[in-house]
């Protein structure tokens, strides 16, 4: 008989646990939950912001949505290209930084051997990565290039759009294979294909703790000016690269803006964004991102302030 009671209690707990879990998922605590969607390269920075901002507004809960949305209404989304815009009519974007994209391959791979000692200029990069008229011509000079397999991301949040745009191309013109999933998985794809080459953002290719390249990756050599070439080697630190790029832009290196899209009707979000632009951006370098140009950064602040003010005046 005791056992029956015990079973009943266990069953009740189990069912309650399920229900409670679902309740919590929707809005369990009663306080405000804000869901953020982000590509993986920006997630460490977001987590840092959430952690720091909780000291400012402890009642607002931020959650970075992982996996499928599971019916959650995404309140903010990290955007890396125009492709992600327009999903909601009221979307606004505030930019908080920039990301740099570098071509990579797997360390010790066949592709790395093919590209060893090569310093690729913008034209050659375009020839290798995209279907284009110049490619065959280039192949004749470097027959080994024919063996390279290009990997690029196909998600909307992929930086592939910006990389293609930088070379005047569209993503449909990428050679090779396109993967579905976060751009971080491009590193995985490279590890499986000895002839694979790809490109990725600095937070995805550098170890944020050691500040050096991830062990399994190597940078593809670029035709850079002598003064800056030393900052873009396999032994360069993340900070060297960021510093170099913030000092002088280079047409071989793709740089895109990263921002947060939001609705603009939620005060809590507006306050958070305002905090990011004034305080949060100080962590950009630590998490592999470049700071915005001063003027652009000021415009972002004005934009968010005007949104915030307008919202308050209603």
């Amino acid at each position: 008989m005791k056992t029956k009671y015990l079973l009943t209690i266990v069953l009740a707990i189990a069912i309650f646990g399920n229900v409670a879990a679902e309740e919590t998922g929707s809005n369990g605590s009663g306080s405000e939950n804000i869901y953020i969607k982000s590509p993986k390269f920006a997630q460490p920075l977001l987590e840092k912001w959430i952690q720091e901002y909780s000291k400012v507004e402890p009642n607002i809960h931020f959650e970075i949505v992982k996996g499928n949305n599971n019916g959650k209404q995404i309140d903010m989304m990290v955007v890396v290209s125009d492709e992600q815009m327009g999903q909601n009519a009221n979307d606004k974007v505030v930019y908080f930084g920039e990301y740099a994209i570098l071509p990579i391959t797997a360390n010790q791979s066949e592709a790395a051997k093919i590209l060893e000692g090569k310093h690729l200029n913008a034209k050659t990069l375009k020839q290798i990565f995209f279907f284009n008229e110049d490619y065959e011509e280039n192949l004749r000079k470097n027959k080994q290039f024919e063996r390279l397999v290009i990997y690029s991301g196909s998600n909307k949040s992929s930086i592939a759009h910006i990389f293609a745009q930088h070379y005047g191309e569209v993503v449909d013109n990428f050679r090779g294979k396109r993967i579905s999933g976060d751009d971080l998985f491009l590193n995985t794809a490279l590890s499986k294909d000895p002839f694979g080459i790809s490109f990725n953002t600095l937070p995805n290719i550098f170890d944020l703790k050691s500040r050096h390249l991830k062990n399994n990756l190597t940078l593809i050599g670029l035709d850079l000016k002598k003064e800056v070439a030393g900052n873009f080697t396999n032994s360069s630190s993340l900070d060297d690269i960021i510093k170099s790029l913030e000092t002088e832009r280079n047409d071989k290196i793709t740089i895109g803006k990263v921002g947060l899209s939001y609705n603009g009707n939620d005060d809590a979000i507006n306050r958070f964004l305002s905090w990011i632009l004034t305080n949060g951006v100080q962590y950009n370098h630590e998490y592999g991102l470049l700071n915005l140009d001063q003027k652009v950064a000021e415009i972002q602040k004005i934009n968010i302030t005007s949104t915030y003010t307008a919202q308050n005046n209603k």
Partner: protein
Amino acid sequence: MKNYWKYILTILFLASPLWIFAENVITGVVKDARSGETLVGATVSVKNEKGVGALTDLDGKFSLSTNKEAPLTLRVEFIGYRPLDVDVYDFEEPLEISLVDNADVLDEVVVVGYGEQKRLELTSSISTVSKDPLRQNNTSVESALQGAVSGLNVTQTSGQPGAASIVRIRGGNSITGGNEPLYVIDGFIVYNDPASTRTGAKSSDASLDPLAFLNPADIESVQVLKDVSATAIYGTRGANGVIIITTKKGSKGHNNISYNASFGWSSIGKKLDFLNAQQWTDIWHELYKNGELGYDLEDPKESYDWQSEALRTGFQQEHQISVVGGDETSRYSVSGSFKDQDGIVKGTGMKRFTGRVNYERNVFKTLLVGVNANGAYNKVSGVADNSGSMFQPSPWVAAISHTPYTAIYNADGSYNYDPTPTSVDIYNGKVGNPISDLENTKAETNNNRFIGSGFAEWTVIPHLKLKASIGADLSNTRQNYYAPSYTTGGLANNGYASVGEASTVTWQSEYTATYSNIFKNIHSFTALFGYTAQKTDRSNFATTAYGFSNDATGYDNLKAAATTLPSTSAHYISTLQSWIGRLNYSYDSRYNASLTLRADGSSRFAKDHRWGLFPSLGLSWNLDREKWIHLGKNVDFIQLRTSIGTVGNQEIGDYQYAANVVPRTVIVNGQQAIGYVIENKSNEDLKWETTTSYNAGVNTGFFKDRLTITFDAYYKKTKDLLLNVPIEQVTGFSTVLRNVGSVVNKGFELEVGGTIIDKRSWRWTVNANIAHNKNEVTSLGELDYFLPDFASVGTLQYINPLIVKKGEPLGTFYGYRFKGIIQKDEDLNALPTQTISSVEPGNPKFEDVNGDGVVNEQDRVKLGSIQPKFTYGFSTKLSYKRWDLFVNVSGSHGNKLFNALACRLTRGNGYYYNPLAEVADRWTEDNPSNTIQKASSATSIYADDRFVEDASYLKFRNIQLGYTLPIPQIVKDAKLNLYVSLQNFFTITRYSGYDPEANRNGIDETSSLYQGVDYGAYPAAKTVLFGVKITL
């Protein structure tokens, strides 16, 4: 206690959060990579996970669940697109998958004889009809091909609904044999022989289109095989080129129903101007004044427009329904259609019912079986053939040239059969009325056709396939003719009837083995070996009777006729068996070779000449793939091709080598008796007409294949042509059929295809082609020339306007050179005498070419030919979002026609007809015309260069505007397509007749001997069609 813990764990498991069973949900959208349009019905499946998959919905979206963890690979497939594998590393975002269509020139697979081949590895000249013309509303299979590819010349010789067309690939090879290309429809060989639908009964002017059984909307693709490397696999039937038609098949994952309805109105494209009643009466007055007529007429009170009265606005409607679909193991496609079309000439029209079933099933993984079946019923009501008549080769010509002086109807609206002072051919006080003739004379052709085949294909090992197929082509034609007692055709005989039936049964079996493999990734090798046999059994009979007591039963009761003419019947059996072999080799897709050999044995030849060998060799080189050649950044593809080989033509008719014994009625002792005579001298040495061909060509692709250019040059010599040649009279015969002639065709072809705009909203494609063919008769044996005999064709038998002459092309016109009209102040003694027309003011004068002082038959010269200098086609499609506009233009330049109708009607004559309006400006003493001769009661005419007209033309075949509207309210994939089509709406030509393509004169329109003579062909129509297509 132990058990209780199990119980606890079970409950916990059941009650635990759903993540224990959590499935990964993958969502996404599939789009066209070029246009960005979403793709409905694409299959998305998880690789290596059976049964996990989904189809994209109306918005191109899909959602599927899998227990598999990332990373996994999705397989995305959609018909017409290259399959794509997508590596999925996480499920965070909906996938956006872009598929690239497989229209890429290099990846395109081309249907060739008994198989398929990558276009990259082709060695032959094969043109593919682009999909756009096939997707429009086409009136016939042939109309879909007009102007579609270079070197394919389709001439619609009659505007009669359901009429046959002349189709030529790279010119005509044969003088007396068939020149039509071979059709291969879903693997079944069909020779487009208009004779197969002729029964011998009196019937309509134009033959029934032998391809009428096939609904053009059922066609998925058409390949035109032009050079010998492609056609040699068809041996004795490849000489005239081959057209491979593949009908629509079902596909995996699709289940669609579509209904297409169109409604249209047709009217004549161009009318001719005739004299009005007063002008016509003026001629009468003139002839009376000149003493050529015995009495005069009163001036008319009214003028009657017989041409307009013979015409009408023809309504047509067509309904088509098709169901296609398939699953993992089966694919099906079923369709049916009904068409009812009124001709623009009264009393004419057609009805057509078609049905088609294609079904395939993978019974086992290695065994595929299937059936293809087409069935159709066609009923064509045509203009009765009356080509034996001097002035009225058909009721249509009789109507348009009828005297405007005579009323068409009585006051009560009934037809006027009363003679007037101008009437001829009066029987029992009545005359025929051509409008009544059109309405009441029945000239019908009914054809039932079934073509069906079944096949089994066994993949013995991955590289070896064995295929067996067997099929039948059953055609049954009935022709009915009845001219009631009050019509022109029945007036003299109290009703005239003729009925006939023709049956053609063809059996075909094919057995092939195909081995295909790639060695060391560089040596691609395909070998085909097979055996095929075909047996054709044709029979026909016809009976004619006249003298009916009444018109009630017409052709349905010949017993009611007072007189029955001797019936005719015939029966022909022919067999053909063949061994086929082909080796294809490609090295690194750079160097390609194709060696073909076919051995044909045909019963159409005597025992010692039944077997023939037909070899061909084709080579091609894709020089763009050579590392050492620098072609520039915009060059994608350059292929050089060349081929050589020999093919044959067995379309010479049956039993030609044998002496035919035929019955003759003879009078013995004053009594009629039937005797048998040998009709022709046998010749057991008769053999194939053989064509040896050389072809060189280049295929190119530029700007990511957005621009493709194909160029071919060829030389074909056909020898051993069958001709009746004179022999010694002691044999008892004047001629014997021998292989003596030869014809050469040489020319070039250019095709250009381009995608000018390829954006998400806009897409603009253009296809253009041009071809030049020079045809020349190079040998006629011991003959230098002969004149094709228009025996029994009223007017034409007296003038024989064509000549077949060594050194000249087939279809060369032959006649006098017109030098103007003899004027009244001209010195008649200074002019040469003329045997064909007296030398007097107002009459025509002709050039005395040989200068012997007499214009006679020896002064006839060649006056041009039907052979065009070049033919061309142009089609373009412009799409903007949901709108699309398609324009198809084709034309011919430099070809001539003998306008026999104008030859007859460009002279003033009192009785028999109403001349063309220009005769009002004829020569009179007060009007010194130098082009139109004076009015005369004489009826003689002559072929001269006035009537050999430039028949160059440019026709806007089709202008179609469409709008596609999604209608998810019905089902989520539903689409509604509305379109309006203008067909043959504009023609630019200098030809003065009804239509520059018109080519009918009462004799076999497909024969090379009689083409190019327009004697009142059924006029071409222009049509406006409105259509709606619903796809669910």
